[in-house]
């Protein structure tokens, strides 16, 4: 691994890595059963230099912003490196957002370059929001069909400069990426992540979960997400490891990838891990009685032998078939993006497959705590990573309070939002909005959320404020969307729901027609953003002088209602 302490920027570190590991394979890209591409670090560098030179020729300069909206693939990482090499700031956006949401963030970030895939561009180019992003000068699309109408974009594959690009150095304090932690309908929250944030995070994470040449990381979480950017790009690249991309995430192809590419690490969101658990459990249950009893006995032996620490050699021999299905070389499944239920973590650990669960948020530079497996504890999110100071603010008698963090990995702030930044970072401490406590052994246990946000099992952050747009002009006096946990704190990190609080006009009834109207609007939202119930409140919402709803005051008022009877199902 490179000694990252001597580097100033992501670009500088990657530049050295590409030379140091020139002959190692850095990327494998597969589509269904076909392997599309396999690149060494030397080949990666050659491709990226063509793009970097063309960007420089087009006037892209230090501090300019370039956005990538792509599914996981080689061209994502090649483009990102070209941006860093030329001193740019990367704005990775979620390809799953709607075109108008993407335009809003392109505008907010003032990106001058957009790199995207043709099918995404086809939708983006005709969306109404296009006129908003006035700064955008260069649009590059990949894999456009021969006769395609590019609607003002250029082909990524043909955007090549002649000669070598000039490396533009950046300092540690400079912004490397603007990462949108959420927020589209209301106030976009663009986390300004510095080069130092990434360099420090990489050192901390690889101290516990190391990479080296020969390690194969299966990249499934979207690369725009902080976790995959770190463990599916920067981390493995600075260690000479290989990243495997799949162009389709159908479960059967993902399953095949493990044995085919002898995967060492993979990152998953809790939902996918849970599905994997269900699938395996069904297979175990289908075994004939005798075999099932024998298998359960082996799992029992494995549990005893791995009580203090993972012993992969033993687990692989004891439970050979299970491990072979995962390729036989899997060291750990990294799970992140949302809270994972302890029972799921324990299930995999008992099979001899450690799950590296942890806790983090984009604002803190990915991970704050990680399970160090010494010993494995399913009921906690692990201990703080090296370099992380974590404290519990205003603890109650049971020790539970708000988790706050101070570290070199904490973002510089939210782009163009000094007030939001001041709320989030107080005296150098990042207030996470999550509630938790430390146990006697120094493990962090999370127990709920303080902020008006939910995180789905798919790792999506949802701010109720963003949902409200679809309920505009609903025939009612006023309304407000909440995370139910925010009103009625449950001390739970799972099964969170959104509710719509309605104040009807005087004499108005909650009719079937109104219910249908709400359902119809609800359906315009992606399924994970939908509200699950309605709360009727027959009084005016408290508002500020500028007539904004005082969410916290209204929530306190609602908390006096009984959640069991107050929430009407839709």
């Amino acid at each position, binding site marked *: 691994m490179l000694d990252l302490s001597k580097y100033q920027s992501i670009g500088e570190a990657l530049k050295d890595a590409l030379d140091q590991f020139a002959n190692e394979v850095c990327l494998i890209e597969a589509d269904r059963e076909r392997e599309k591409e396999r690149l060494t670090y030397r080949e990666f560098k050659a491709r990226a230099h063509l793009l970097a030179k063309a960007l420089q020729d087009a006037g892209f300069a230090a501090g300019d912003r370039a956005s990538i909206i792509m599914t996981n693939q080689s061209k994502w990482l090649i483009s990102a490196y070209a941006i860093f090499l030329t001193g740019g700031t990367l704005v990775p956006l979620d390809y*799953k957002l709607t075109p108008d949401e993407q335009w809003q963030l392109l505008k907010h970030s003032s990106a001058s370059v957009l790199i995207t895939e043709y099918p995404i561009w086809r939708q983006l180019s005709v969306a109404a929001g296009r006129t908003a992003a006035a700064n955008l000068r260069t649009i590059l699309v990949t894999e456009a069909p021969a006769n395609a109408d590019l609607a003002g974009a250029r082909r990524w594959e043909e955007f090549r400069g002649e000669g070598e690009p000039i490396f533009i150095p950046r300092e540690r304090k400079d912004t490397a990426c603007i990462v949108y932690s959420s927020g589209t309908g209301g106030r976009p929250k663009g986390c300004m992540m510095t080069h130092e944030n990434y360099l420090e995070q990489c050192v901390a994470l690889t101290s516990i979960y190391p990479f080296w040449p020969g390690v194969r990381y299966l990249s499934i979480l979207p690369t725009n997400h902080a976790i995959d950017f770190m463990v599916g790009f920067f981390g493995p690249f600075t260690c000479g490891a290989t990243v495997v991309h799949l*162009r*389709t995430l*159908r479960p*059967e192809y993902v399953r095949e990838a493990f044995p085919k590419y002898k995967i060492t690490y993979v990152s998953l969101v809790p939902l996918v891990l849970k599905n994997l658990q269900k699938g395996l459990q069904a297979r175990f249950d289908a075994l004939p009685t005798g075999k099932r009893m024998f298998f359960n006995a082996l799992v029992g032996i494995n549990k005893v032998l791995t009580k203090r620490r993972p012993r992969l050699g033993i687990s692989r021999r004891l439970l050979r078939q299970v491990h072979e299905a995962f390729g036989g070389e899997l060291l750990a499944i990294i799970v992140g993006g949302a809270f994972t239920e302890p029972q799921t973590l324990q299930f995999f650990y008992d099979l001899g497959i450690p799950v590296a669960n942890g806790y983090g948020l984009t604002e803190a530079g990915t991970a704050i705590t990680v399970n160090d497996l010494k010993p494995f504890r399913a009921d906690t999110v692990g201990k703080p990573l090296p370099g992380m100071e974590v404290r519990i603010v205003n603890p109650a008698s049971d020790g539970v309070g708000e988790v706050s963090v101070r570290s070199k990995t904490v973002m510089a702030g939210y782009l163009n939002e000094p007030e939001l930044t001041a709320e989030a970072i107080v005296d150098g401490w990042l207030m996470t909005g999550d509630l938790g406590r430390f146990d006697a052994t120094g493990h962090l246990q999370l127990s709920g959320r303080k902020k008006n946000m939910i995180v789905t099992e798919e790792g999506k952050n949802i701010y109720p404020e963003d949902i409200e747009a679809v309920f505009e002009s609903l025939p009612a006096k006023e309304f407000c969307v909440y995370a139910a946990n925010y009103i009625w704190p449950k001390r739970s990190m799972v099964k969170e729901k959104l509710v719509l609080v309605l104040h009807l006009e005087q004499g108005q009834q909650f009719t079937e027609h109104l219910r249908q109207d709400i359902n119809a609007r609800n359906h315009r939202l992606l*399924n994970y953003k939908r509200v699950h119930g309605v709360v009727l409140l027959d009084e005016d919402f408290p508002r500020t002088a500028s007539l904004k709803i005082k969410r916290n005051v209204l929530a306190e008022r609602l908390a006096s209602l009984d959640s069991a009877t107050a929430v009407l199902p839709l």
Partner: protein
Amino acid sequence: MRTLEQTTQEVLDLAATHFQLPAGSLAPGDDFFKKLGIDSLQTLEMLSRIENHFGIELPDYEVQGVSDFKTLAERIQSRL
């Protein structure tokens, strides 16, 4: 060449078979997340069956944000 109606019907039949539901129990406008109680991953599983049936390849992004059978059938139709 199939009509959109034929494609839609075949998609409904395939989905019903995949999720072991009686034939005719699904309608084009049904939201499959709500009607079938499935998540996006299970939708992807259903897609492979559909792909094999129609002999096409539907990239994952084509089904992003699609939650009803009618829209899904339209996406398939455009690739037939």
